[in-house]
């Protein structure tokens, strides 16, 4: 599986980009100990004009490169944590629905459908506005709007795995349903979940930046969306201020998508079966 993953050029590029972004995020406090908010120079310096400020300065004369590095922390953190939270909601719900069926399924699916009926970005806006923007509330809001597809996917996977004969075998062996679900069924659904999770991180990063753009970001956390939102008003005079973080988002999301597709190819049972036959 890993062999196939790493023979995929797209996936390799994705991993390389992501590793770079993660490294920058982790090293941000080392490279820029003064933080992203420090005003260091004249405002509106274009990139590559002043030594030591490769990406120039923003509207208040803060180092854009430092902002970008710290922004990576927030974007990745929000993306990751919200995905984990979404999985924590979606996986158990979908698994229970798919495994126990009947009333449980009915209830869980109605609940999921309900959340899918509310336009998700609008719901995220309301949630963040209500809980007041902070990293925690943004992450939670993103998680709340992004779990339904997880639940649906897990449900479908569990339903198909549940029909496989080894599940019957486990029942005949006298295992309790809960143990069958956890030890036998769920491990067989991880591949599609992993693929979906990698794409969800990407979507979450986009969502965070969109919220931030609308002014619903955490004012104490530097994020890429914040940078674009802040630079939007000067897009005419300093377009690069929104362009640079925009590219950062595009590249990171692209990397995550490439990885997701690579994983999909590597884990896809369809292709795997073909190779086995």
């Amino acid at each position, binding site marked *: 599986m890993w062999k196939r993953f790493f023979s995929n050029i797209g996936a390799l590029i994705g991993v390389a980009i992501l590793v770079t972004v993660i490294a920058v995020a982790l090293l941000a406090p080392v490279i820029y100990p003064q933080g992203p*908010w420090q005003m260091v120079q004249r405002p509106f310096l274009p990139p590559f004009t002043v030594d030591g400020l490769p990406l120039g300065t923003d509207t208040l004369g803060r180092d854009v490169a430092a902002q970008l590095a710290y922004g990576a922390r927030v974007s990745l953190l929000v993306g990751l944590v919200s995905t984990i939270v979404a999985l924590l909601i979606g996986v158990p719900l979908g698994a229970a629905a798919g495994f126990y069926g009947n009333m449980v399924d009915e209830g869980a699916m109605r609940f999921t459908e309900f959340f899918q009926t509310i336009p998700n970005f609008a719901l995220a806006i309301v949630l963040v506005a209500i809980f007041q923007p902070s990293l925690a509330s943004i992450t939670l809001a993103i998680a709340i709007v992004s779990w339904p597809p997880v639940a649906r996917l897990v449900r479908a996977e569990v339903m198909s795995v549940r029909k496989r004969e080894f599940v019957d075998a486990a029942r005949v062996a006298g295992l309790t349903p809960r143990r069958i679900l956890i030890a036998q069924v769920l491990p067989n659904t991880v591949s599609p979940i992993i693929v979906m999770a990698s794409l969800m991180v990407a979507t979450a990063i986009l969502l965070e930046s969109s919220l931030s753009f609308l002014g619903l*970001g955490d*004012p104490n956390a530097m994020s890429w969306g914040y940078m674009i939102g802040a630079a939007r008003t000067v897009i*005419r005079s300093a377009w690069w201020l929104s362009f640079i973080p925009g590219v950062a988002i595009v590249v990171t999301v692209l990397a995550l998508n490439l990885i997701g597709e690579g994983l999909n190819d590597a884990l896809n049972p369809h292709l795997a079966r073909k190779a086995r036959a």
Partner: protein
Amino acid sequence: QQEGGRLDIVVQPEPPGLMLGLVQNGPTQLVSGDIYEGLLRYNTDLEPQPGLAESWEISEDGLTYTFKLHDGVTWHDGEPFTSADVVFSADVFLRETHARLRSSLAYVDSIEAPDDRTVVFNLKEPFGPFINAFEVGTMPIVPKHIYEGTDYATNEMNATPIGTGPFKFDEWVKGSHIHLVKNEDYYIDGLPHLDEIFYRVIPDAAARAVAFETGEVDVLPGGSVENWDVPRLTEMDGVCSTGKGWEFFAPHAWMWLNNREGPTADQKFRQAIMYALDREFVKDVVWNGFGTVATGPISSKTNFYSDDVTIYDHNPEKAKALLEEMGYDGEPVRVLPLPYGETWQRWAEAVRQNLSEVGINVEIDSTDVAGWNEKTSQWDYDMAFTYLYQYGDPALGVSRNYVASQISKGSPWNNVEGYENPELDEKWEAAATMVKPEDREAAYAEIQKEIVDDVPVAWLLELEFPTIYRCEVKNLVTTAIGVNDGPRDAWIEE
């Protein structure tokens, strides 16, 4: 002077309603200032000019104000306008709906209409600033024949406002624009010059700038684009700008400092803040050079301003010393920015940076408009940005923020910081009721000198919102409320 033409003006945000007697927020005043009129208008030196009243007289004792109304004025629906409308508006309608006017009306004993064209206000005691209370946003005259005896808030006519002004309401396409057309029967011959006005709703500041650049709109009233865009736009060919037209409001920005609890309850801490802040930097960078660093509670554009006060320059050392002196233990303070766009956000970030440089731990509290209102009015903040209008006179727009009688939970426009100084309270009260301007001048100078040392709030800037417009548009800003009632006299040069 040329007749005709159309003017496109940005209005932001979209007004909640156009019935000026019910809603007095900025966008409503901008649009409805053309539909409704007050008894008086004010020039940029805040001197009263004829409005619906063609002349007026104040008795020697300052207790009787007599207005002679214009002849031949009609409402937009054709009904004649009379003194009864004025009495109804001031005494009945606005008393119920207009909080700001209500505090001025408290000085009024009675309002009479001896004849169709005369209105007399009788005051209980002299009230110096009363002559400033007849501006259209403060006392809009509303039609008695439409509102008398109805539920004002739900009257159907609110959707199609009827005034006496130079322009008539035509159409409101929600989310897009409001269309006003020339009032052909306007009582001043030759006015207005323009045929129609479109107030354009464009929610995004950058889009507003683009709209101006591409010629979609002709006028950007103060504050409609972010400050960073102002120099770029004004440098374009054929574009003019003016800082005038805000004298009546004289927007004054400061941070509420919670005088009740936390480090901000300590006068030394508050003074330290004043020294820590680099207000010149903010003016130059965040506000792009617009505005003036405030020296105290009264704007230099307002009557009775005095600069004979302690000047707080940017002096981090002094700030640190003061903090040392008070024994500041690093307790974090929260800053609540004003949720009015990027400029204010940047300002809060600059403040956080300034304060952290002198060792104050700052966290920015984030919130939207409703949250900001809630937090300030419920006193749930340490430091909170705001800016308020001065309405031409300290007694109207300044004292309310510093006197103890104005401490009351639930409103973000009174003495929110919780400053209590009984001695000064008396001086404010006395200054308001003096008849002679020279006396008031002296009284206010004394007040300013004293209060600035106390730093009840952290005064920041006298804001300047330049109005940007195409140079073909003439005579647009001639009054103290600028574009709000400017289109009456404006004309376009081909």
